[in-house]
């Protein structure tokens, strides 16, 4: 290290104190992870994937007769009215941001589901996220609050 470098170097003690001040510890919630994942999927969805490109000619060759198409459309409308409409009311329920397994409630099973996902692919989820979720669940249950 030359003299100029030494002049512009910072003693380790000061650098450590600066890092302690500027690197406040925080945890990414699974909710933000899920939002980013969904946004990415939606953003890139317009691009052709190899599977979709390969399937395209088959769909064209198997063109459905118009009569059947009208019938199918009518059936789809009926199904929408009978089945999907009530389900839509469920969709307006508040989103549970920690509901990792999609069960509709937040409990320790969500932390287990996260742990299983991490065991399969450690890059998917940080251990800190699992620990944070487990801590939140335990603290909520200790307070006898029902989600």
């Amino acid at each position, binding site marked *: 290290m030359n003299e100029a470098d030494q002049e512009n170097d910072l003693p380790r003690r000061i650098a450590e104190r*600066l890092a302690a001040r500027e690197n406040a510890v925080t*945890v*990414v919630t699974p909710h933000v992870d899920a939002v980013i994942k969904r*946004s990415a999927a939606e953003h*890139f*969805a317009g691009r*052709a994937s190899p599977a979709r490109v390969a399937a395209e000619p088959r769909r064209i060759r198997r063109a459905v007769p118009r009569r059947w198409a009208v019938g199918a459309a009518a059936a789809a409308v009926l199904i929408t009215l009978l089945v999907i409409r009530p389900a839509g009311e469920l969709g307006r329920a508040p989103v549970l941001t920690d509901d990792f397994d999609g069960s509709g409630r937040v409990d320790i099973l969500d932390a287990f589901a996260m742990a299983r996902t991490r065991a399969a692919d450690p*890059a998917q989820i940080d251990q800190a996220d699992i620990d944070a979720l487990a801590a939140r669940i335990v603290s909520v249950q200790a307070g006898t609050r029902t989600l």
Partner: protein
Amino acid sequence: MADSSDRPSDDELVEACNHADADAATRAFEALYRRHRNYVLRVAMRYVRDAEIAADVLQQTFTYLLELFPPTGKGFQLTARMTTYLYPVAKNFAISAARKHRRFPISDDVVLDDLPGAPPARSEVESDDLDRALARLGADRREILTLRFVDDLSLEEIAQALEIPLGTVKSRLHLAIKALREDPKIKDLFDQ
């Protein structure tokens, strides 16, 4: 920029986001997010000091990045470290969020021991002196020190991240260290 491990580099991930098919591009973007989310959160926390608002900043930063890639954007060429690009975006969103929530960036007269992340003091008097010296530097000089010695950016990368001339970076860095070196309470640390 290349990784020493066999995992894809940031360059490769950005390239996939630019040109790969939908599935591969989505996976590449998720990998970029997982790799850099903690850095963006730390940058956000420097300005907002609130985990919930920092999470919003994280989401805004990566949503902004996502929009740079086709089909909405023209693509993104990585010519420096990813953090160099993420820093100004996260900083700007964080400052906006801080203003919106009336949590202005930390002022110079705040007692630093009240802040999150401060480790137990080795010597009370010395740590207090050190904190006061850092606080007296001012936000601009402290930012340069942080980018250089905490985030480990090169001077060129700092210039790019802050969108200021390289000479200004060198000048601020030199003056910041000079100020610390001349502080009578902590100047001994430079001789150890």
